[in-house]
């Protein structure tokens, strides 16, 4: 149910004197004191809301979201698979959640055992040698690995200033490279949607530190030139970084380390189904090849016999990219997932993710173009270009209209190399019936009236928010109405 009464803001519900949480009386005799100059005249002007109003407000708001638990959510590149409920129950165990990040190793051996095993599992799945669980998200994993690459080349006495990035890459790749102090150089895609080897060769030289590749790439294609690419890079002494956003396609089938990647990140919230939390938290652990292990952030979990400990004695480490150990709550869910699936289950994930995507592709290809081929991996990019050209129906129109059918829209207008892109990733946890219903909706939409589609969605409480107004007038907070 879509609850319109929830559109009032917390601040509009506020009435002086109401509150939800009440504290016990103070049980110590000390008044304590702080210098008057440090004190505010009163507490911050937060809203005052009673408990039932507070609960209704947020619960009603929750019904104004689409989510995996309520809707098919084929958001390309985001791997919106089912989030198992057992993870939520087990990760909420107080003996896991109520651990202070700086308590002694001896007092959290159970958790350290899990984190140590998670390092080992992620190294095995990557086919690489060392893992840091520290980065908070994929983008921070990218940054961490690039900072390590810089430290590695500095250690070797080499000055390498460039990072090469395919034009189909996620925006985080160039943003992370710039933040790590590198110049970015874009490498073209060829007509097959893969890395243009001639363009790569022409841009590759001794200044190149890292080539960042997403494989399968953002078009959902496995770049079968990968062995040649990694050989070219290694021949010039450069490193290959794998953006692991698309690991859901290759679990147990091929490993980044086996196809020549030297460093990679995982998105635990995607591949290993930590819930996406309406925009996070994620976790972005990185795996690297042997020569880069000394540069991993500090600390790592180490093992000595049956005892686990945090190893800070790592003189060549780049340091740390955040406070404390990492997004443990998400890592724990990822570990629970891997332990639930086992080797066969992990492989089944990728087999069925790829099967589901290809099935959807086969259902749509007669009506929506898929510019880069008949087959895909775990996702594919369809194009509404013909509909746009002939009938002025855009990818956005289609995405918005899908909401009326109870489906979340695909990722639209990404990757940039496809016009009117609709990036569709069904994941392995959807049934054939759901895929069929989604395909039927897309086919029906392609036949609908253009003007009708321009105004979609029609069935939801809202339609087409004015984004230009939002950016121009920038109202980023509620303000108390001024009293006359």
């Amino acid at each position, binding site marked *: 149910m879509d609850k319109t009464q929830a559109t009032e*803001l917390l*601040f509009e519900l506020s009435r002086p004197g*109401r509150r*939800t*949480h009440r*504290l016990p009386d103070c049980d110590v005799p000390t008044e304590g004191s*702080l210098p008057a100059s440090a004190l505010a005249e009163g507490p*911050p002007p*937060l809203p*005052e809301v009673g408990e039932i109003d507070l609960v209704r407000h947020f619960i009603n*708001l*929750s*019904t104004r*979201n689409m989510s*995996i638990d309520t809707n098919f*959510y084929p958001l390309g590149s985001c791997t919106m698979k*089912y*989030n198992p409920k057992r993870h939520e129950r*087990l990760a909420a*165990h107080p*003996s*896991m959640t109520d651990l*202070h990040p700086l308590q002694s190793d001896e*007092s*959290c051996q*159970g958790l350290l055992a899990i984190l140590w095993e998670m390092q080992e599992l992620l190294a*095995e799945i990557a086919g690489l040698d060392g893992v840091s669980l520290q980065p*908070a998200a994929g983008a921070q994993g990218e940054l961490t690995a690039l900072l390590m690459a810089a430290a590695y080349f500095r250690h070797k006495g080499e000055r390498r200033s460039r990072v090469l990035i395919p034009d189909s890459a996620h925006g985080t790749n160039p943003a992370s490279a710039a933040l790590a102090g590198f110049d970015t150089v874009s490498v073209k895609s060829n007509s097959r949607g893969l890395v243009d080897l001639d363009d790569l060769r022409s841009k590759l030289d001794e200044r190149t530190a890292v080539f960042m590749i997403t494989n399968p790439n953002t078009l959902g294609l*496995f770049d*079968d030139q990968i062995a040649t690419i990694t050989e070219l890079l290694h021949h010039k002494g450069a490193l290959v970084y794998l953006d692991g956003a698309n690991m859901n396609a290759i679990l147990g089938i091929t490993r980044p380390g086996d196809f020549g990647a030297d460093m990679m990140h995982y998105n635990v919230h995607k591949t290993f189904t930590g819930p*996406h*939390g*309406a*925009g996070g*938290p994620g976790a972005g652990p990185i795996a690297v090849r042997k020569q880069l292990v000394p540069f991993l952030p500090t600390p790592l979990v180490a093992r000595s016999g049956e005892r686990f400990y945090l190893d800070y004695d790592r003189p060549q480490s780049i*340091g*740390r*990219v*955040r*406070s*404390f*150990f990492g997004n443990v*709550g998400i890592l724990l869910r990822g570990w629970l997932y891997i*332990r*639930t*699936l086992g*080797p066969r289950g992990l492989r*089944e*994930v990728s*087999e069925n993710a790829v*099967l589901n995507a290809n099935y959807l592709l086969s259902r749509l290809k007669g009506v929506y173009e898929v510019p880069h081929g008949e087959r895909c991996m775990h996702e594919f990019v369809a194009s509404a270009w013909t509909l746009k050209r002939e009938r002025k129906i855009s990818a956005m129109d289609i995405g918005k209209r899908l909401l009326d059918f109870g489906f979340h829209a695909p*990722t639209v207008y990404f990757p940039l190399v496809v016009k009117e892109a609709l990036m569709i990733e069904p994941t392995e946890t959807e*049934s*054939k019936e759901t895929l069929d219903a989604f395909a039927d909706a897309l086919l029906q939409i392609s036949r609908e009236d253009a003007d009708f589609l321009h105004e979609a969605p029609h069935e939801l*409480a809202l339609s087409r*928010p004015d984004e230009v107004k*939002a950016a121009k007038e*920038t*109202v*980023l907070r509620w303000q108390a109405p001024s009293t006359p």
Partner: protein
Amino acid sequence: MSYVLNTSEDQRAMLAAIGVSSIEELFHKIPPSLRLNRPLQVPPALSEMELTAHLHQLARRNRPAGEAVCFLGGGAYDHFIPAVVDVIAGRSEFYTAYTPYQAEASQGSLQVFFEFQTLICQLTDLDVANASLYEGGSAVAESVLMARSIQPQRRKVLVAASVHPEYRQTLATYTANLDLHIQTLPTPNGFLDPDDLKKAIDDQTLCVVAQHPNFFGCLEEPEALADVAHQTGALFIVSFDPISLGLLKRPGQYRADIAVAEGQCLGNPMSYGGPYLGLLACREEYVRKMPGRLVGQTVDRRGRRCWVLTLQTREQHIRREKATSNICTNQGLMALKATVYLAALGPQGLKETADLCMRKAHYAAARLTQLAGVQLRFNRPFFKEFTLQIEGSVPALLAGLLEKGYHAGLHLGRWYPELQNCFSMAVTEKRTRAEIDGFVSALADQRDGACNGVPTPQVRSEPVEQTIHG
């Protein structure tokens, strides 16, 4: 068990529709030489019952705050979390959604983030706040990068040594390859003396970074620091404790330009360090230099008030290498928890929480310093955390107290070689007088017993300077 629904019949039908004879054929682009020709070496699958038993067994080897009384602080605190926070954050419409790219299908999350931004503005007395960063350490790094893009011609960053050592390490790592000079200003008296800042600052100084209350628990003099910073045109960045703002002046009131914080204390469990919540608020004029997502108010085509992601041209998916930050996924669920927490407390609840922390911390400090050989290391006002100096080995004392059932404190010698004999303690509103009194007795016994029978643990050393540009 892979949560896959496809039966073998489904698979056959789907393969036929695709026009291939096997799933294997769908992977034909992956050259055979690159295939993994063996099962992954991961442990065999566990059923839900087995997994539950295994997790519970491992959990028994942890000693959480509920089993030992927690006086640990240093950026993560054992505050109380009202049930409404967990119940609301447990709504799967929130936790199984993603970034609200499709506004019509995400008004729940978008409105929560708009409320979150407003609450953080109210909390800090600043004009704008983003929809969250990862956590407190990278929030400091992001704030310095933001200052750099506001004043690109300046290069020098002054950071008080009383800022959380791990935040300073994070800043050092983030900026290792950028043309910035980071200078740490000593704080021998437990705070950054504004006169010392005056001596170090110059017209090349981009920003001054302080933490208030700082890592030792002491209050800084933020107004004086802001004045010194502003006199040379530097920005003043403060890392604050959200709970402290129930009592203390707010960053906007002491003229901070950018305020950042660790928001774990706002309804998030300690979870061994994450996921946490980075807060960032600033003055209106810097809004286009902010990192991270922003939610703005607008109207839909029928004129109804609603919310959308806005000012996205700052962000990596549009601006790529020229983005204000590389951040993409942030901490939406933690921001939701903080929103519910602040709404559940309200102004009075926040004030009472802060007051209880302050009074209990002062009670604990007063009782502990009555013991012979135990004293406050710094003669400074403090909020909920303070630094004690003792005679003898701090690690041995802390290990002994853990045996007695107390997570007693943080050994500061780990980060500050000159503070070998010191540890910091945090006292939240959850601590009772009985727990504090019990701790005072345990500490007295422990010292009298001179650590009999407790092996001296290995001393961990992690001076910040060593890790810079490693």
